[in-house]
């Protein structure tokens, strides 16, 4: 392996200005830096946990050589993770001459602001949507705004504004579009193949040069905090004020950010965001589409990774149950040693995963279900969108020619201390005819498989009942009924 160059500064572009920082605390957030250090105070703090979107900014980065701008939550985005990006805040929105930007003017004309505090965040989310999709459908608008809370307007005026943006200007002529080439060139130049190392001791951060470099960094510092999207670790800092140094940032890392398909198996690198992963997954496995639309908000999906969702071992992570039901495998790596295990074996107990010190999740491999099989995943939450799972069930069924259950895998989140399979239910279904009577009988097995908890999201009774009913929903869905079997606002992209 060639010797890796070390660079002791992070470099990025802030609006129209090149920034190089040699002193960056590993837990310094982009929002605090913008507001306190740069006195750019258009970006607001509403919750400091990535839920309200008042701090939304755009981050432009190179993804497979192409410059993409994504909205993210500055409150839980670490400054140290911005190397080689273009950060765009509300202050950078420019219209024609003295005029407001089309997004801003539409918001003004359609009365999209009342108290105005959430407004810069909405403007940035709408800006990201408009650049990507200048004539969005209502469903696309709603999806783009899942990560932005407004308490005044009831959103109707904001949606009216969103529909009208293109009548105020052309997305193709937007300054960011016009400067795309120049910015792309700049960002490419910033990517010099170096590893970034800043600080020492309790104030140390590392951005490895690539996946191999990550392996060697972690080999030397097995206790380091590995941060991909920071949608979870961000809260360790902003809410729990935990010391996380040394930090290793792995977002957008070469060799860890690829998604590929080989022989019916989709391999997703641990640094691939939800947005990137699902753009492929939802096409290849359409049943995952509606789930994706209900994970976090757009900002969180642009930051968070499936690798992180798995690695943190939460019992309410949204991706492990469907991936387990699909028979996914996980590759873990330490130094040059890799091992691949069934994903479900990774989760040992609450807070305990099968990961050795210095080892990191490198990729997850998801088999595309055979056409003949039936696969579904259902998430239950208090609020439909941008809410954390109360219970989530994934079902993967193979029927024999005689209509009996040849194979079934059922995995749940929110029902136990880890993502867990419903072995008793599966057993009760195996070999039986796929009929409502069979399903009814198998539903009794849930009580043996799961003893859910009561918490702020749902009572144990509700979890038990709703989880069980999901099997019935799955049955109805697989029997080709035309009658509606669930309420939804989902629209396939």
């Amino acid at each position, binding site marked *: 392996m060639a010797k890796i160059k070390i660079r002791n500064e992070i470099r990025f572009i802030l609006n129209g200005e090149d920034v190089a920082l040699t002193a960056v605390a590993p837990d310094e957030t982009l929002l*605090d830096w913008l*507001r306190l250090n740069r006195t750019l*105070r*258009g*970006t*607001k703090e509403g*919750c*400091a*946990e990535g*839920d*309200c979107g*008042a701090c939304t900014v755009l981050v432009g980065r190179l993804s497979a050589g192409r410059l993409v701008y994504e909205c993210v939550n500055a409150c839980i985005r670490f400054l140290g993770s911005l190397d080689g990006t273009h950060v765009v*805040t*509300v*202050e950078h*929105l420019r219209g024609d001459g003295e005029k*407001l930007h089309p997004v*801003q*003017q539409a*918001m*003004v004309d359609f*009365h*999209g*602001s*009342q*108290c*105005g*505090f959430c*407004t*810069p965040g909405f403007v940035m989310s709408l800006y990201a949507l408009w650049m990507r999709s200048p004539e969005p459908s209502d469903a696309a608008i*709603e999806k783009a*705004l*899942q990560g932005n*809370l407004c*308490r*005044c*307007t*009831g*959103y*109707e*005026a904001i*949606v009216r504004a969103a529909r009208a943006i293109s009548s105020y200007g052309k997305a193709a002529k937007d300054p960011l579009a016009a400067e795309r080439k120049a910015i792309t060139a700049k960002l490419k130049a910033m990517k010099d193949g170096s590893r970034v190392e800043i600080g020492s001791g309790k104030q140390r951060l590392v951005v490895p040069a690539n996946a191999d470099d990550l392996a060697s960094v972690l080999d030397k510092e097995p206790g380091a905090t590995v941060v991909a999207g920071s949608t979870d670790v961000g809260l360790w800092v902003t*809410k729990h004020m935990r010391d996380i140094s040394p930090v290793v940032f792995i977002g957008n890392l070469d060799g860890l950010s690829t998604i590929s398909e080989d022989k019916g198996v989709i391999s997703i690198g641990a640094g691939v965001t939800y947005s990137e992963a699902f753009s492929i997954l939802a096409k290849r496995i359409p049943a995952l589409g509606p789930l994706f639309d209900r994970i976090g908000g757009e900002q969180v999906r642009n930051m968070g990774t499936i690798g992180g969702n798995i690695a943190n071992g939460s019992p309410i992570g949204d991706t492990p149950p469907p991936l387990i039901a699909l028979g996914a495998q996980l590759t873990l790596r330490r130094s040059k040693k890799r091992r691949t295990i069934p994903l479900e074996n990774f989760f040992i107990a609450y807070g305990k995963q099968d990961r050795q010190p210095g080892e990191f999740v490198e990729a997850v491999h998801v088999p595309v279900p055979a056409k003949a099989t039936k696969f579904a995943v259902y998430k239950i939450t*208090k*609020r*439909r*969108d*941008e*809410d*954390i799972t109360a219970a989530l069930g994934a079902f993967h069924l193979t029927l024999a020619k005689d209509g009996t259950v040849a194979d079934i895998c059922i995995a749940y989140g929110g029902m136990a201390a880890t993502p867990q399979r419903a072995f008793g239910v599966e057993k009760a279904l195996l070999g039986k005819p796929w009929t409502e009577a069979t399903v009814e009988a198998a539903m009794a097995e849930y009580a043996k498989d799961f003893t859910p908890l009561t918490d702020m999201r749902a009572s144990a*009774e*509700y979890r038990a009942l*709703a989880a069980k*009913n999901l099997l019935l929903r799955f049955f109805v869905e697989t029997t080709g009924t035309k*009658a*509606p*079997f*669930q*309420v939804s*606002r989902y629209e396939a992209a």
Partner: protein
Amino acid sequence: MTKHTPNLKAQKISGGVATDQRHDSAHKHVSGTAVYIDDMPEPAGTLHGCLGLCTATHATITKMDLSAVRSAPGVVDVLTAKDVPGENDISPTGRHDEPVLADGKVQFYGQPIFCVIAETREQARRATRLAKVEYKELSFVTDIGDLDPRKDRLVTPPLTLKRGDAAAAIKAAPRRLKGQMRVGGQEHFYLEGHIAMAIPGEDEDVTIYSSTQHPSEVQHMVSHALGVPSNAITVEIRRMGGGFGGKETQGNQFAALAAIAAKRHHRAVKIRPDRDDDMIATGKRHDFLVDYQVGFDDEGNILGVDFMFAARCGFSSDLSGPVTDRALFHCDNTYFWPAVHAQSAPLYTNTVSNTAFRGFGGPQGMVGAERVIDEVAFAVGKDPLEIRKQNFYGTSDRNITPYHQTVEDNIIHRIVAELEASSDYARRRRVIEAFNVNSRFIKRGLALTPVKFGISFTATHYNQAGALVHVYTDGSVHLNHGGTEMGQGLYLKVAQVVAEEFQIDLDQVKITATTTGKVPNTSATAASSGSDLNGKAAQNGARQIKDRLTDFAAEKYQVPRDQVVFLPNRVRIGNQEIAFADLIKQAYMARIQLSAAGFYKTPKIHWNRDKGQGRPFYYFAYGASCSEVSIDTLTGEYVVERTDILHETGRSLNRAIDLGQIEGGFIQGMGWLTTEELWWDGKGRLRTHAPSTYKIPLASDRPKIFNVTLADWPEASEPTVHRSKAVGEPPFPLGMSVLHALSDAVASVADHKVCPRLDAPATPEQVLMAIERLKAKTRV
């Protein structure tokens, strides 16, 4: 706003009343240049505060070791109760039951017990975690279900309303029933959390920038806490990032502590709590248990009702007295109760002290009334809308409220009739029935609910306002008044009134930050009264100046007074017209006073709480909404398919602003009744204290079809400002139609034979459990 030269030939001014103006700060909101308190440049050396919250639900503090806090990096000071130089109390009603910092005893989990002052906010936050506090736990109660509203401790005296003999009427009724309803509380979730920045001045002076709806109260509380006269304290607020009642009294604590620290250290001090601390340590909407009994006939005519409204008030009174009073004032909603007895029980609990929230108890009262209607409808087997209509207040009879005020302006019949037609209620009712027959798991529901909301502070003395109007020699106007801007467009509406009065373009009127130094002794911007009161006060100020100008012009140009007419941007004096600005210049040269303090007090209102009689409200505002939902009977999940709203604001000052209030109010009310759930664990800890766990509506929770209409025909029956009506709170209870549509959908699983008694918030869990209850009942 771009300033332009006034058009001296205009037919109409630009931006007068009854025109659709954009929010005066809209262009600043969208560009991030609107300044909130945390965005202001801090004076050099500004310190930052963080509250230390207790970790016991009800306890005496046996030991408080703050040495590690004091020695933490950056810490300058740690304040405890003994450091409050004046009175350690911020009780807004003077009951002395709410300390700035708890002293020896804590009464809810998260009550502030100390305050760290450090060089940076981060340092202050980190240091608070180092406190070592020991407690001797006492028994506690957090849930009002565990209390007896007739016997247990109250935080403030209860109210009883009665008219006729309700007990006898219920007893004599052909049919009767009783039940109980739980109505949840609500977190304000203003996007901008609480914040105060105090800047010490000379002598005893402090200037405080506080995100508050009630600057005068902050001024008084700070002066008490510091032990200095009110005239030493100036409180200023240009805008809040949302208030909704949550900043009526709850900002006092932060302002008082910032001021105390500022005086101790002669440095500016800012306190901005983290969202979780804000949600844990500040009050919310009161949740209620409503016990009801109703007597009625076979047709569903209600003959008598009896209510007990038991409220979780928390550990102190705060505004619980007037809030629970207003619940009783709205236990009739739009209905005439021939005989009524209603009682409140503002109960003491070991929870944060609940406070004002848009509607101020009124919506909770109305939800109780609507439950009674639902019960009667199911009992007699009629569509609830029929029962609603047949029990409406009359226009000339059957129009006396439980508090003995006559409803003189009732327009609910027309509102509901128009909405019933425009929403196609009857046809959709049939369509939904057919749908439900053919759909096994998804069921639809429909409901149309009315709203009548009483306008005025029930504390009569609050119904006053002041304004300060200056006209400068160039003809531009500087406007100030006691109302605060929290996004509702108050500043704009009042400016429109002043522009209209002077007949000058709106952009000639400069809107300025609310400050106790310009307009004193103001009321909270609350009770929907902002534009009614401040609009009138500003109008009065402008009229005083206009009167002087008229006198001056009549004398100078030797014409009768009635020949001085204010036309758009100009004044006609006899046969000639001169620019408004020119008249001002002339008046100035003639030493005419061009500044005035305006004042207004609402006429006609009076209230005798001991007797439970009077006219607490100047007028009522009306509206109605009709919602259709789909529910999933396997999981309880739902979507709102469609909502139609018809609401009135009299002769609107600004229909665009009013529409925003109606849409926003409805969604906020819907959130309260659906997904917004406050949840305390067995240890008395609130566990829903951030947006990750407390779920306000999103854009995708809006009704799929959302038709909102502002009625164009009503006008205020009283001479309000340009005959407009209040719009802040009245749209909030429009959200009730969603709760009742959900209930209707649930009822379909038992063929509409059983009242679902769906409590609020109707989370998916509540909906599913109600379905299971109904299924169990029909199985028997």
